[in-house]
């Protein structure tokens, strides 16, 4: 099964890339677009026969150990 993990900077942390994207979009005429923040998406495969609990536990452990720095980032498993 395909796993998608969305990693983003926590809300209170300045995300300068989003700000620059917002300025560019606004100057292209997308003036309704605001509060843009950019994150990253990590995709990976896990075996289909893995239990729901084990899946959650493994993903959580991988995020804590390597994929996410919880001082600055938060994550969400999509789908």
């Amino acid at each position, binding site marked *: 099964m395909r796993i998608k993990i969305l990693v983003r900077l926590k809300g209170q*942390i*300045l995300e300068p890339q989003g700000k620059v994207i917002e300025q560019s979009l606004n100057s292209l005429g997308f003036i309704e677009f605001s509060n843009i923040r950019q994150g990253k998406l990590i995709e990976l495969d896990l075996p289909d026969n893995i239990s729901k609990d084990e899946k959650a536990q493994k993903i959580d452990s991988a995020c804590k150990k*390597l994929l996410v720095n919880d001082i600055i980032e938060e994550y969400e498993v999509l789908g």
Partner: protein
Amino acid sequence: MSFKSAVITFPGSNCDRDALCYLKDLTKGEVHNIWHEETSLPKVDLVILPGGFSFGDYLRSGAMASKSKIIDEVVKHANDNRYLLGICNGFQILTEIGLLEGALIRNKKLKFLGKNCFIKKKFKNNFNLSIKDNQILQIPVAHNEGNFYCDAETLNLLKNNEQIAFEYCKGEFSNTEENINGSIEAIAGITNKKKNVLGMMPHPERAYSDFHQSQDGRLIIESLIS
């Protein structure tokens, strides 16, 4: 007894040789270069995690290097109350290991900064003993992720425990910015609580020789040796 030291090299380190020369020239003692896949460290007084782009800065700066085989030994070295200095990428690695608080995020203005900067010491520790209060040091920086971040609670701890070693400042005769990269409280370097581990974004190993613009980087090694 002569001062012994070591520099760890990761794939993508690019200041390891500078750090080796810095240590050889200033300590006059034994200097080891250790590859990140090694599983033992010689007993030395100081270990440097050098600058560069370890593992291509993939995922986050320093994230991959913080999981290298040698890191267990580096942590033991620090727990043994011996000195550990992380410069630039080395600072990022130390925060990723968790030996130092906080994190280094993208520079506020999204620009890679490669230039001289000015710093002064904030709280006294063994790495800055030879530096006078309010003495302004000129030391180069070269980083994209040097914007020090921590939450308010951690910042209070850093202040109460006097863990802030260096802060960016205006140069005496220049129009430099006071806080070049947007770091909280212009923090340029912090120590751990025991003050035997220092992480700093500026590169003292690029400011020690006659052919460098400044020799202020000498003061860090001189402090440790004194």
